[in-house]
């Protein structure tokens, strides 16, 4: 049942990997979240992590970004295991930036500029370079106009962008995003995706957790299904087109591949055409 991707990993090098990861929140829950999870993040890809709530998505993301230390197993950055020292963790955090689901957990400063400059200042950069970094990050997220605004007067979508700018200002190689589209309206989702796509084409690797099977199906290069263990990992178009796999991960099937098959069977879509990615694609077919 599991889909493997032995060939995909040969094409691009793994920039980040977790090997045999185990983790549990022992203080409050005797049962571990998972005991043996391995994952490779390939350079330049979008890796989507999907699974039910409580399946360990956030935990895996936090382990990969050095925000939690695994009980067993290790994190490998550019082929070298990350040491469990202060310096080792700092090195990992500098290269891999985690963005949480709730922007309020990460917006702790009074103004946008202050908040985005927090990371670069901690890296000990000169003030001039900090300013450049902040300006660049705000421009990349298309929020230069918000620079002087107090954070508590921003809308939810704006706050999400400021948090992303704060992570980006660290110039990470890998951005790890926990449910980046949660709480955004459809227009907000589209515009955030366009921004993230821009970052990806500029070379940033993206790891994204989501509940949205259709979003992952149309956007991610690879998908990993996680429910206290890796249920499947492989090309998103294959893994997320398999209703049996998705049901095992307590997810609903994606519309795109289901509709694509149905339309192909009905002769309304050429056999070689890709699955529709959005309802608009379906409407366009008819029009």
């Amino acid at each position: 049942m599991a889909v493997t991707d032995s060939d995909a990993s040969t094409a691009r090098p793994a920039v980040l990997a977790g090997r045999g990861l185990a983790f549990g929140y022992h203080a409050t829950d005797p049962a571990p979240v998972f005991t043996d999870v391995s994952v490779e993040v390939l350079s330049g890809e979008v890796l989507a992590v999907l699974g039910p709530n409580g399946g360990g998505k956030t935990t895996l993301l936090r382990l990969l970004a050095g925000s939690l230390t695994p009980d067993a197993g290790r994190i490998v950055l550019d082929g070298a295991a990350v040491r469990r020292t202060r310096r080792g963790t700092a090195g990992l955090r500098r290269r891999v930036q985690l963005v949480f689901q709730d922007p309020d957990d990460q917006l702790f400063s009074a103004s946008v500029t202050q908040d985005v400059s927090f990371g670069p200042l901690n890296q000990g950069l000169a003030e001039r370079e900090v300013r450049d970094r902040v300006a660049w990050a705000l421009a990349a997220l298309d929020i230069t106009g918000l620079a002087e605004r107090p954070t508590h007067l921003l809308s939810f979508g704006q706050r999400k962008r400021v948090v992303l700018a704060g992570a980006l200002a660290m110039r990470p190689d890998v951005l790890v995003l926990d449910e980046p589209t949660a709480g955004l309206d459809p227009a907000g989702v589209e515009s955030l995706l366009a921004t993230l796509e821009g970052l990806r084409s500029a070379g940033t690797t993206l790891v994204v957790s989501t509940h949205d099977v259709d979003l992952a199906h149309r956007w991610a290069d690879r998908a990993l299904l996680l429910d206290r263990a890796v249920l499947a990992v492989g090309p998103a178009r294959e893994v997320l087109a398999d209703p049996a796999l998705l049901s095992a991960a307590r997810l609903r099937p994606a519309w795109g591949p289901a509709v694509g098959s149905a339309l192909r069977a009905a002769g309304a879509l050429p056999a070689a055409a890709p699955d529709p990615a959005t309802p608009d694609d379906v409407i366009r077919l008819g029009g």
Partner: protein
Amino acid sequence: MLAIDAAAHSSPWRRVHPAVKGTLFGGLLACALVLPVWPGAALSALAALAVGFGPARVPPRAFARAAWVPLLFVLTGAVTMLVSVGGPDAVLAWAPDGWRRAAEVAGRAAAALCCQLMFAFSTPLADLLPRLARLGLPTALVETVALTYRMLFVLLDTARRIRTAQAGRLGYQTRAAWVRSLGVLGAAVFVRSFERARRMRRGLECRGYEGELTVLVDTPPVRPAALLAAALPPLSVAAAALHPGMWP
């Protein structure tokens, strides 16, 4: 979220009346404090540990982790009793009988600590709050304390997440960064605490809140037999300690 609280809520003794657990562990605590340290405190500690790790099934690892900090305090404090300062012969000298005194104080405190922890590990603070009203405290005060309990978990969660986010952006790498990050964190949590209060008022108004937060509190009767049974271990410890003849 807090290990002791989480363990207490899943304790098999959660349903035992707080007065019963209070009698048992409070009695043992009193024994540890009042009786001759040997064998009184030792017996109290043994009884508390036996009951706690036995029928109350307190998780030993969590217990050890919780006991560590206060034990460190006890040991540090006891160490000072080993020496005497400003004596006639030397500025610093071994205190006469210092070992015995330090051991006595440390032993007593360690025993008392076991009793306190076993009570905390089997009795959620939430179950004690309604008793405050029965002690005659004004409702306004009891409700404020109960709200503090509820909100502290929400705020603790917020503080942890902000801290994690700061750490992810290298906010705790150097001492200077640490001070700055903590200041930012403290200010953010303060602002959030007010925001929480405002939002909760808004949320509760929709549920008919007009100033009172009356809730249904289950008041299981205290069974005299259970109280008596709970009093037995402390009484036995007291008897054994006060009648050394029982000891060979």
